[in-house]
């Protein structure tokens, strides 16, 4: 438990240290938004769409669709979105295996590095 805590503290510390370093290098307008780069922020980003999704599903009950598709139910668009997205992402791996070749495959060199 303590170990975990110290690990978290360490992570936090390194985040802070990194941010301090970045603050010097970063664009002045970007300074207030450096927290976006924190790991915790990125990890917890998931809650933003989750909350949004829940709200819109609820609102979907308030505003029923005027034109219904045969497959429509109350959260159908959410399901479509989630499934379609996941399908695309999961298809990436096999597709990559199937289609990816070395960058110099056509013998024209890799463009722009």
């Amino acid at each position, binding site marked *: 438990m303590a170990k975990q805590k110290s690990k978290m503290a360490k992570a936090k510390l390194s985040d802070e240290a990194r941010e301090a370093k*970045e603050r010097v*290098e*970063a*664009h002045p*307008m*970007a300074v207030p*938004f*450096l927290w*976006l*780069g924190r790991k915790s922020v*990125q*990890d917890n*980003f*998931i809650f*933003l*769409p*989750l909350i*949004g*999704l829940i709200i*819109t599903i609820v*609102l*979907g009950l*308030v*505003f*029923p*669709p*005027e*034109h219904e*598709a*045969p*497959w429509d139910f109350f*959260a159908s*668009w*959410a*399901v*479509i*979105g*989630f499934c*379609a*997205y*996941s399908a*695309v*992402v999961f*298809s*990436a791996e096999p*597709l*990559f295996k199937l*289609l*990816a*070749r*070395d*960058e110099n*495959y*056509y013998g*024209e*060199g*890799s*463009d*722009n*590095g």
Partner: protein
Amino acid sequence: MADLLLHLNPGFYFIFAGILCALLPVNIVRKSLLVLTPVFAAFMIFQIYGAQEVISGVISVGPQELITLRIDRLSMVWGYIFCLAGVLNGIYGFHERCRITDSSALIYMGAAVCGVFVGDLLSLFIFWELAAISSVMLVWMGGEGAYKAGIRYLAIHVLSGVLLLAGAVIYGQSNGGDYTFGNIGIDAPGGKLMLIAMGIKCGFPLLHNWIQDAYPKASITGTVILSAFTTKLALYALARGYAGTDILIYIGALMTVFPVFFAVIENDLRRVLSYSLNNQLGFMVCGIGIGTPLAMNGVAGHVVADVVFKGLLFMSMGAVMLRTGTAKASELGGLFRSMPYTTVFCLIGAGSIAAFPLLSAFVTKSMIISAALYSAENSHAIKDWIVLAMLLFASAGVMEHSGIKVPYFTFFAHDSGRRVEEAPWNMLVAMGLASLLCIFFAFPWGGYQFLYSLLPYDVKYHPYTGDHVVFQLQLLFAAMLAFAFLKRIGAYPHERRAEILDFDWTYRKLGLGIVHWMSEMWTRLSVNISRVSMRLIKGTGQKFYHIFSPAGTMSQSTPSGFAAVLTAGMLVVTLIFIYIGAS
């Protein structure tokens, strides 16, 4: 004089300016021309086009009349958006000092504008080819790898032009010499040829590879310019000639879906955007296929929106490339620290293409999807519902590649450690303007109404209904959730450098291989043949030489005696002819 200007296709201003630019050594003048010409052209369109269709500038070439100016509600939309894109591109390329890019860009824009405003197929062909030829210069400015891509690009576009011409000639001849460019339809003579020609330029499935091949290899500004015109010109031609052609619905639906899969595995972000471009074109082609006034409005509106937000995305990637030297997702990341403005603009572009409410695609793409929905409701046909499903799937797919992948891997994700400068001011201005437009076109209080007022048909459509907003957001949030979720569980694939095969493999590898193989075979064969053939050729040549050379039989200074005999022989021959003729 002013009267004359009213009969001049506004595209010619671009071409004149382009030729001028080719000769002008002064950079600042060229740049101002690049920005001011579109403004002036747009002003002229405004002057020429009242409310009625305008047809003028008829030039007679031999028996054929070329209508060089025809503005109606359909072409007007394209004309304005091309001018707008011209201005944005002009500002965006302000920092660049390259005479070739400037002049060819202007000529290219001019060709596109002319192509949109001409009234007959032959003129269309001329500008179709001019656009191809002038734009290949932009590809070639991209550096080393671009040369071969440019050649392929040119070959494909010239092929497209040839098909168009062939179809046009067949069509015109069967119409009794009437080449007017109106609704053609797939069943008209030559209609299929022209459809394929436009299909090539539009990136129909299997004909699309030139987009992903050439655009990412063009120069930074080149890509931005290219993205706006060629495919949109082809869309205009489709909208004009093939509105309501059923097969376009399915082609379009297919076009929206397949690029999604390529985009997800592609590493080069400009290539990702090219696939995304293809995918957006799919929506519009589908809309043209549906062909109802609402769908056509959706197409026209989405063209406007697409030129702006796709331009914006390409611009932001261009800015990144300018500063970091690469557009590969695997090499980038965390750039929001260095390029905050670009990040914001890119996010606005991504939001627009993903059709977030209050951003432009929301008010345009939804018209197409609604039209698909209505037609499916009317027909109750399974295939129409499938089309709708494909479109919805593709909408989620858009969210994946353009809405999330492009901005995420560039500006967030794992910090690549690159610390670079913010984009130059002119790029920021161009991107800023484009972002404002993205917002303006979807602005619920006056913005989208303005956009709709430009559209070719008078159809009432309200994008901001409660259910529409809610369900669109549902879709998008679900997609984002899926992204975050997959990322979290580590299922989201890492970006890897690779060359992704597409249909162009058939000609870049298979075709080339066949050619190589055949030439190899030919070499072997010719070793055997050569001895025989060489002897034959040599023999013939020598025989010719013996006959015709100065020392040869034909050329020896003929002795007068022989010449006299020849003359007598000639007399005999003549008399025989006369005898035959007289009797």
